[in-house]
């Protein structure tokens, strides 16, 4: 049988090549993700090993606070250095003990053109450190220049120097939590062998200046200690511990510190890893449909061959294992190829994330055994598992089928359910009944009316769909995201099961004249648009060429070519839609209808991608609508100073900015807004801080008691009414709080307010003095300002622009601009998700091509006949394209429905989190439909061409 399996494979190279392609793409995404994250991990592992190379012991606080930015520890007194110096085993350099106090600060360089370097919000961190006095401890090596000696001298990393063009001697503006200041670059340093540590932009200050900026006189984050030669790290740690026996001080070995740093990075990478893996799994899930479909069709087409095998004595099991064997070989080979492509794709993923502003430091390529095993195993298992149902079907082909006239002509392969024994059917019925009592009734009716396969499918589909929907709802409203994921998969399977029933009815509707008219019209518009884009790109390309910009010219020419291909596809779409009014289009519609199973499972693959795209689109537009509504309703500020780059984490401005804005004669009220993480009532929470009086004037928080809120004092906290209700807190209650600066603080609940997280802010609010006492760094993430009455908007803006100018990372926005910026950052994220979902859609497109190609093989004689009685090649192509469009529209419509339902459910579930408006964007959803139709035409290109080139004579005489 094995020989037969292999022969079967070689005999049908093309059909299996397409299946293999689907598996390969899924596996390559998976292995690409693994390779990329492994590579990043190794890069960081090496980085930390380098950073801590000379550190034998590390002294720091034993207190810690876990926040979304990682573990934060309070600072320790600088005086510990002299205590450490007393310990035996500490190395000496020129008589001084090798113990270096360390501080990490936010410090952002401003480039020559006035643009800030790096983007702490999303990608490359912008950090400041103390220039180490001890060569033993420092990973930095001067490339040019010297160490900083004066407070206004700095060393910058070579990566940033190369990027900005700064040289030794240049004056450079640096943004920190104190007012922006000019420093002189006295040295440019390399980090070990690298130009910069993991792509970060780094400024190295003198110890005194770093402490000044950090407002950490006589304090350090930690102290790195170098041991004498021959003293082990463990011994050194023991000796230091005995000389400084203080509470809340911890001494660990350098090796432990490295391990800890590495683990922390791995933890923060695991989110990123999971994020990418989800998309890889989506792609694989879509591949499953394609594999299932291919094997189903192939089994149907080979009914006669299998029946012959049965007739000459092969057992059902043998036939089944020959099909499974094929899937095993295909799955394995495709996985091997996918692994190879994945290694290349890892670089592509990195570039993709980079183009969305997420800079990832990754050098070389790391291929772990785990990656190889996982990729091969997952790819092979997914393929074989998807082929199980078709192989079962193959095993129940009766020998008599060999005698039937034609196995191909419109015959459906025997239903899977009809192949099961009666007892299995009953067990299945009982199982279903446990979940949905109605299921068993339908099954009973089905059995009585002898329509087991059709009604059984409906029953099963409904049950699965109900279960999935239930899981999603429970997951969403119970806050169990894993359950939502499982539910989503189950719903997709349920819809796929119902698909054939839907497909038969829907295909005709989709092939109807109004739909065709719409596609025709939209296609014509798109043709025009892409045509214009082609011409425009060509003209620009030519201009660039004459301008001597060869690279630009080439890029534009490529864009023109791409637009031309799309324009051509649009023309084909229009022609196919026009055909829908004629017999050739009707044939396409009927072809989509005649094998509803096939059409449905092909469409289901696309449905998944479209559902996710629609879901994301709906969530994004709902989020934007909600934010917009909040801004419109609650915002009373005229201007907002916000980071140019958008986003929150890590970026911000010195509080000096808010002070300067407030001091302007044009300004009536202004306040900076700070964000921080604290442990409140035992849980890590996000809180905000601002001048309460000013904030309430600028942003309508709807406080329950305005006076109480506006007079919020130190060690007091205001909470949203929602949280107060949830936790049962009343004004006057005490909340235990832990902040990054250490210790436990009792905060008194002093006020409640209405617009918490729903308004895009936080449920917890503290005054600025509470914040500044408890956080090591003070950065305003936004500054809100309101003009004095009588000051024109233009004059106000002018005045603010002048004050903001030194803060290169800040920009003054009016409400509309602020709103647009918030929307922009959402769009950027959404675009990244679109890009990652693209692969799933491409795989679905391959599925369409595959199904069409297989159907064409099946319909060879029919095509021959059509051609014989006078169908032209282009008419035939239109027939096939229109069939593709109908399959795609079916998948898209189902996907949109799912997307809308899920979107609605998620928005409902998130209404507490500030997304309270369900706003499906009509125009964008229509565009999704059109793109799907266009993709269908593109993917139908090769099947259509193949069909058109069939030799008429051979085709009609095909058996």
């Amino acid at each position, binding site marked *: 049988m094995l020989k037969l399996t292999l022969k079967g494979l070689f005999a049908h190279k093309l059909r299996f090549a397409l299946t293999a392609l689907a598996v390969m793409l899924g596996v390559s995404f998976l292995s690409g993700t693994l390779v990329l994250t492994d590579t990043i991990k190794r890069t960081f592992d090496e980085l930390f090993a380098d950073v801590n190379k000379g550190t034998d012991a590390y002294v720091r606080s034993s207190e810690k606070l876990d926040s979304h930015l990682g573990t934060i520890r309070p600072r320790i007194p600088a005086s510990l250095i002299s205590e450490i110096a007393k310990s035996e085993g500490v190395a000496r350099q020129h008589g001084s003990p090798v113990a270096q106090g360390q501080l990490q600060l936010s410090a952002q360089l401003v480039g020559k053109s006035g643009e800030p370097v790096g983007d702490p919000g999303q990608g490359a961190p912008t950090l400041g450190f103390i220039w180490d006095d001890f060569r033993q401890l420092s990973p930095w090596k001067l490339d040019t220049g010297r160490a900083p000696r004066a407070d206004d001298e700095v060393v910058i990393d070579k990566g940033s120097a190369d990027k900005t063009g700064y040289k030794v001697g240049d004056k450079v503006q640096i943004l920190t939590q104190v007012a922006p200041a000019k420093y002189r670059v006295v040295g440019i340093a390399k980090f070990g062998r690298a130009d910069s540590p993991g792509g970060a932009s780094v400024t190295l200050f003198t110890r005194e200046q770093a402490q000044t900026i950090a407002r950490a006189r006589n304090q350090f984050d930690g102290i790195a200690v170098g041991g004498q030669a021959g003293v082990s790290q463990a011994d050194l740690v023991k000796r230091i511990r005995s000389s400084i026996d203080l509470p809340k001080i911890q001494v660990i070995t350098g090796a432990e510190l490295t391990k800890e740093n590495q683990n922390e990075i791995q933890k923060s990478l695991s989110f990123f890893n999971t994020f990418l893996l989800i998309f890889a799994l989506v792609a694989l899930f879509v591949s499953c449909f394609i594999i299932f479909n291919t094997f189903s069709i192939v089994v149907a087409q080979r009914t006669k061959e299998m029946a012959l095998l049965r007739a000459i004595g092969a057992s059902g099991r043998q036939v089944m294992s020959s099909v499974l064997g094929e899937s095993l070989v295909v799955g394995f080979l495709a996985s091997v190829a996918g692994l190879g492509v994945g290694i290349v794709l890892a670089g592509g993923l990195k570039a993709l994330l980079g183009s969305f502003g997420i800079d990832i430091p990754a050098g070389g390529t790391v291929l772990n055994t785990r990656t190889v095993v996982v990729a091969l195993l997952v790819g092979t298992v997914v393929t074989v598992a998807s082929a199980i149902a078709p192989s079962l079907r193959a095993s129940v082909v009766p020998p008599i089928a060999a005698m039937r006239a034609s196995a191909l*002509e419109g015959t459906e392969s025997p239903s899977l359910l009809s192949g099961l024994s009666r007892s299995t059917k009953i067990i299945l019925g009982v199982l279903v009944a446990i979940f949905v009592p109605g299921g068993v009734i339908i099954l009973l009716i089905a059995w009585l009316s002898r329509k087991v396969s059709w009604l059984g499918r409906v029953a099963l589909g409904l049950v699965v769909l109900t279960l999935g929907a239930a899981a999603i709802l429970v997951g969403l409203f119970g806050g169990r995201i894993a359950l939502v994921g499982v539910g989503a998969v189950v719903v997709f399977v349920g819809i796929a099961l119902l698909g054939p029933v839907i497909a038969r009815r829907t295909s005709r509707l989709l092939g109807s004249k109004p739909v065709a008219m719409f596609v025709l019209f939209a296609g014509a518009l798109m043709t025009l648009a892409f045509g214009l884009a082609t011409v425009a790109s060509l003209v620009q390309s030519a201009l660039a060429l004459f301008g001597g910009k060869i690279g630009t010219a080439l890029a534009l020419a490529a864009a023109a070519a791409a637009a031309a291909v799309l324009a051509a596809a649009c023309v084909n779409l229009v022609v196919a839609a026009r055909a829908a009014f004629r017999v050739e289009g009707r044939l396409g519609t009927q072809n989509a*209808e005649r094998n509803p199973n096939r059409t449905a499972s092909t469409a289901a693959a696309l449905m998944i991608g479209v559902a996710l795209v629609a879901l994301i689109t709906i969530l994004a537009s709902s989020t934007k609508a909600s934010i917009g509504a909040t801004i419109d309703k609650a915002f009373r500020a005229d201007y907002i100073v916000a980071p140019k780059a958008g986003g929150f984490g890590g970026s911000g401005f010195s509080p000096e900015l808010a002070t300067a804005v407030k001091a302007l004669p044009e300004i009536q009220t202004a306040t900076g807004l700070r964000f921080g993480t604290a442990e409140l009532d035992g849980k890590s929470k996000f809180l905000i801080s601002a001048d309460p009086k000013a904030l309430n004037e600028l942003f309508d928080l709807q406080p329950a008691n305005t006076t109480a809120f506006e007079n919020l004092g130190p060690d007091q906290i205001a909470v949203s009414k929602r949280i107060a209700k949830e936790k049962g807190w009343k004004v006057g209650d005490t909340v235990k709080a832990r902040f990054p600066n250490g210790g436990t603080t009792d905060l008194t609940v002093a006020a409640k307010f209405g617009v918490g997280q729903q308004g895009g802010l936080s449920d917890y609010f503290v005054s600025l003095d509470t914040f500044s006492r408890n956080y090591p760094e003070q950065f305003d993430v936004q500054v809100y300002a309101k003009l004095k009455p009588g000051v024109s908007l233009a004059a106000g803006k002018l005045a603010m622009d002048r004050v903001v100018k030194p803060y290169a990372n800040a920009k003054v926005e009016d409400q509309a601009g602020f709103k647009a910026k918030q929307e922009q950052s959402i769009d950027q994220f959404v675009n990244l998700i679109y890009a990652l979902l693209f692969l799933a859609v491409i795989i679905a497109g391959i599925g369409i091509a595959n199904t069409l190609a297989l159907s064409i093989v099946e319909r060879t004689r*029919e095509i021959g006949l059509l051609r014989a*009685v*006078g169908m*032209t090649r282009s008419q035939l192509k239109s027939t096939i394209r229109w069939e593709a469009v109908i399959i795609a529209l079916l998948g898209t419509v189902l996907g949109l429905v799912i997307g809308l339902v899920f979107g609605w459910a998620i928005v409902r579930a998130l209404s507490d989190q500030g997304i309270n408006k369900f706003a499906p964007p009509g125009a964008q959803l229509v565009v999704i439909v059109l793109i799907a139709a266009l993709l269908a035409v593109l993917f139908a290109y090769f099947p259509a061409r193949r069909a058109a080139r069939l030799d*008429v*004579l051979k085709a009609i005489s095909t058996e």
Partner: protein
Amino acid sequence: MTSVASDPRSAPTKVAARAVNASKIYGSGEAEVRALDGISVEFADCAFTAIMGPSGSGKSTLLHCLAGLDRVTGGQIFLGDVEMSSANEKQLTLIRRDRIGFVFQAFNLIPTLDAEENITLPMALAGRKPDKEWFDTVVRTVGLADRLHHRPSELSGGQQQRVAVARALASKPDLIFADEPTGNLDSHAGAEILGFMRRAVDDFRQTIVMVTHDPVAASYADRVVFLADGKIVDEMLDPTADLVLDRLKNFGE
């Protein structure tokens, strides 16, 4: 023997199609096969001609070349005044659609279209409306009036062939080619189909060229052309089944 088969009636009547020194050669050198070896033959308008010969005699190839489904490698094929051998693929398709009707041995119909749609398919492909009166006449003749909205799978083999004959007639082609049209039918259904074809020539002045193995089928024709080894070896006017059978027996010798 390479003979120009002459029909005594061909002088006054028009010629619907003709082959002039047509040859079709597959392969080359040792493996060369001459499916048609310089055939010249004319098919008169409004006549029913049968082509007969043993397997491999080239009769199907001749039919395919005449019908624009295949090309000759030498010589010329004319449909009326149009020289088919110089037409390109698209022109051939349009000729088939507009000027030729087909009846194949099996798989004559598109399974997704009902009988009426199958009958009018060539006209629909051309974007033409069928002539209602003619359509009704054809449908009545083949007795399909109550089966027009049945799909092929709901029709018997004989009914399916009747639909095929109706399709061939419906567009009033210059020429109808039938390739073993009764090969898959029982004798009763076969006789019915042949009767329709006979009537199409007698009553509607159609021109039919039919390839067949069956002497009974051939007896419905006005004339039988016998092929062997890619050449025309004989012909017979007003054939009867017995005469044809006798002639065929002689091929063995």
